């Protein structure tokens, strides 16, 4: 038998202690690890340091001190912003939970008609831009020009207005309907994965349907509901677009809109911005920590790999009411706002009511045909830039995600725990907080004013979304598949290329499209870091609503929403529901 000779130098030479550490695997993984660590920690470090530097009166220099934090407690508008943020996040969380849990239960556990199709539709609001949603609801229900108010005046002859979203309740309303799918996602999986024998055994002891639901089903999904609520609270308090459109202009500033005013404009005060960002960031990070370390481990219905067929409750003729309820949600969250945007976008100037004779696609021409002289550059730039950022950002982030999940799940010891931690940190900090840190770190460097700084911030904030997709698959496939490739004579890199990555493909595609969607609608990071020429889609919308009119704003909103809907469709074809849970 021919035996391939193993190089004898292995036996002869006497390498040093460290030579064994220089392998393909160690070099590449430690390089990626260091890069990600730098990207994540530098902005946070800058925020901590910056928040303790106090700007002097003339605004030229700064010195160490706690005055920023004292100022925060003193200035009444910041106190108001703090209170508003708390009220909005709490209100939105409660409303989103009521809607999300009820929809999840109807979809997972009842014979509500048309469930299979509602599933996809219920998730759509989660992928749309809440900022555009706020603009749409402003068009629908602002006191003077709101479409619904005008409709009521015309139909019922009411005077004044019946609906008003230009206040804190409007912010809660819009935030809640766009975040309900988040709670839905957390709960529906848990309801589906539940072992039906848990409920069956309750029924056999004599407990009725209602009693079983209240004493067995609900407690079992309680951790999932709580998880969804915490994440919704965190996301709502970091939400920028909705309060920026419906709150701040009408006297309801929030933490995020205040950070924005400190980050841009002539009176910019990065040190104050840093102090506010730190305060918000610490609160959200703490909540995410609680969710991950305390609530997640208490989930009773984790994936067991067993295919359960959950108990389906027959609603009788009530099932039509259930269907109506679900369709009602979709009408309010998707159809009504997108329809209003579309109608507004058809008018050259929006006056609050439809003028069929004046409907035109001229607005679309001004925004899409960028080579024409009358085109609006910030808007047309935004479309191009966003697609560039989304494409390259999703690609780079997925490469990092693969490397990170590999290191977390395929290497052992202290390093992998650290990296796991590294992947959670960005989730704990709202985009606008991270952007503030990125701004302070990089404003003096050449990447400021280019797309690179946006790309860097996008990836740093969102690569954990991709990492979750690849990690869940990596966890499910046996490490022996990699090991048997090494034993077959393949190097680490060859194993990655021939075995690991092909097996991860579904997760990689799903993660890529998810990131593409997130980047295409991103607002809070972009609005802090953009400069003339590097506008993004959402910044373009911001520009139009600040400097142009409602019609043009709605037009770009429709374009963005359509692009997102197409991506959602592709995503849905590629990935399951589980891949989405943030």
């Amino acid at each position, binding site marked *: 038998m021919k*035996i391939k000779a*193993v190089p004898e130098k*292995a036996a002869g030479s006497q390498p040093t202690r460290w030579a064994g550490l220089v392998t393909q695997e160690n070099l590449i993984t430690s390089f990626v690890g260091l890069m990600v660590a730098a990207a994540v920690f530098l902005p946070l470090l800058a925020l901590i340091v910056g928040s303790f530097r106090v700007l002097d009166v003339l605004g030229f220099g700064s010195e160490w001190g706690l005055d920023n934090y004292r100022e925060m407690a003193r200035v009444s508008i910041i106190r108001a912003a703090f209170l508003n943020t708390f009220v909005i996040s709490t209100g939105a969380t409660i409303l989103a939970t009521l809607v999300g849990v009820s929809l999840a239960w109807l979809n997972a556990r009842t014979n509500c008609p048309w469930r299979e199709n509602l599933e996809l539709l219920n998730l759509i609001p989660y992928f749309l831009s809440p900022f555009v949603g706020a603009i749409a609801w402003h068009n629908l229900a602002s006191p003077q020009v709101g479409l619904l108010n005008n409709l009521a005046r015309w139909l019922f002859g009411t005077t004044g207005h019946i609906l008003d979203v230009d206040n804190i309740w409007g912010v809660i309303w819009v935030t809640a309907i766009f975040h309900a799918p988040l709670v839905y996602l957390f709960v529906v999986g848990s309801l589906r994965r539940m072992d039906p024998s848990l409920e069956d055994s309750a029924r056999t002891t004599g407990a009725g349907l209602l009693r079983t639901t209240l004493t067995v089903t609900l407690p079992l999904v309680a951790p999932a509901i709580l998880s969804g609520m915490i994440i919704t609270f965190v996301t709502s308090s970091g939400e920028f677009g909705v309060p920026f459109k419906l709150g701040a202009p009408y006297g309801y500033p929030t933490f995020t809109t205040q950070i924005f005013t400190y980050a841009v404009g002539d009176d910019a005060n990065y040190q104050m911005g840093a102090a506010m960002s730190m305060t918000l960031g610490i609160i959200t990070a703490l909540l995410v920590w609680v969710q991950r370390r305390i609530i997640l481990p208490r989930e009773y219905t984790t994936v067991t790999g067993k295919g359960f067929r959950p108990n389906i409750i027959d609603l009788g003729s009530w099932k039509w009411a259930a269907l109506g309820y679900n369709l009602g949600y979709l009408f309010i969250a998707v159809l009504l706002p997108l329809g209003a945007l579309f109608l507004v976008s058809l008018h050259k100037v929006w006056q609050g009511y439809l003028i069929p004779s004046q409907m035109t696609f001229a607005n679309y021409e001004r925004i899409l045909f960028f080579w024409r002289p009358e085109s609006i550059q910030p808007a047309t730039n935004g479309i191009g830039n966003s697609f560039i950022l989304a494409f390259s950002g999703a690609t780079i982030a997925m490469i990092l995600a693969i490397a990170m999940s590999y290191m977390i799940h395929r290497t052992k010891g202290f390093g992998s725990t650290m990296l796991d931690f590294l992947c959670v940190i960005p989730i704990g900090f709202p985009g606008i907080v991270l952007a503030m840190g990125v701004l302070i770190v990089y404003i003096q460097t050449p990447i400021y004013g280019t797309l690179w700084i946006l790309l860097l911030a996008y990836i740093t904030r969102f690569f954990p979304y991709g990492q979750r997709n690849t990690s869940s698959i990596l966890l499910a496939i046996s490490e022996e598949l990699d090991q*048997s490739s090494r034993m077959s*004579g393949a190097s680490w890199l060859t194993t990655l290329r021939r075995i690991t990555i092909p097996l991860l493909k579904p997760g990689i595609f799903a993660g890529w499209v998810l990131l593409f969607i997130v980047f295409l609608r991103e607002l809070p990071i972009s609005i802090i870091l953009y400069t003339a020429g590097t506008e993004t889609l959402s910044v373009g919308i911001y520009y139009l609503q600040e400097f142009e009119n409602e019609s043009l704003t709605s037009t770009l909103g429709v374009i963005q929403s359509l692009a997102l809907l197409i991506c959602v469709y592709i995503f849905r074809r590629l990935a399951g529901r589980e891949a989405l849970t943030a």
Partner: protein
Amino acid sequence: MNPLENSAAPYLEVQNLVKTFGDDRAVDNISFGVPQGGFVTLLGPSGCGKTTTLMCIAGLHKLDAGEIRVGGTLYTSAARHVFLPPEQRDIGMVFQSYAIWPHMTVAENVAYPLEMRKVGRAEIDERVNQVLRLVGLGDMADKLATQLSGGQQQRAALARAIVSRPRLLLFDEPLSNLDLKLREQMRIELKRIQQEVGITSVYVTHDQSEALVMSDEIIVMSKGRIEQRGGPRDIYARPVNRYVSNFIGVANMLDGVVVRVTAPGRGEFEVTHGNARVLLPCRLGEGLGEGSSAVLSVRPEDVRATREDGGNPGFAGEVLQTIFLGNCLDCRVLWGTFEWKVLAHPRTWLRRGERVFLRLDPERSLAMKP
């Protein structure tokens, strides 16, 4: 290489291997060798360090101390900072989960090690076909791995491990995921194929009957150490201690004292159980002399239970339970406070509550250190 030299030194040499996970010494200073073409089984319960040892040989774990050599080449040495990466060790391995790659066909799976060795396409095709026929998957080449049954995946994994004719074959509990019938069939087949290709093999299992059927030599491990090594018959007949005796097969274990040494390696053993007390002639294990307390181990099939007095009236008991197993009768006989396990011939007709006499063969009663 001179074949005589070859047979003198073991082909696989594991010396003073230590592997720790944190404070846990998973493998605690073990050494053994395997001659070329030999089949050695590491046997023990989960957590005894057998798989860790295998992983160290494969290069999938780094060891903390010790050396591993294959065919005279140093593969790894903690003291000399030598570590050959797994892909350069020329070892074939069959994993517990088979680890057949689901995104490739059976033929692609099996061809992979040859591709890595830069073998030409034509030769790859020929060797893949040859080895697939050898393992009985000749007509499965183009099936996707996911379309195979457990037993077929097992065969494919074996084919992939031997196709490159590696220096060493490692098996990590390869049969534990199969059902009983298939497992028994695959034992024989695995052994046949290994003998046919003649590759030196190390096999890890917790299943004692698997170890008995397949191995030239068995190494019984416990808590990271070697308890005993030897041929299957040897280990079964002469376990060195209570642990090995218990692990390999079933045994009656009685605590007592060696009262007399009658001849070298022979003696008399006194057992007391409740009111019952008996003097039994037996073989003595190593290190036992007059007055040493010891454990007597007797296999259930080496105990005779008869209705007639066998000339030793003190050694009588009462039948507690009989279980008919088809090829034998499993009885429990109460003697004093001790419950004997006795395997009797299936046509023996013993009834519950009956008084029986037990007789032991001194040659098959072994006193060993407790």
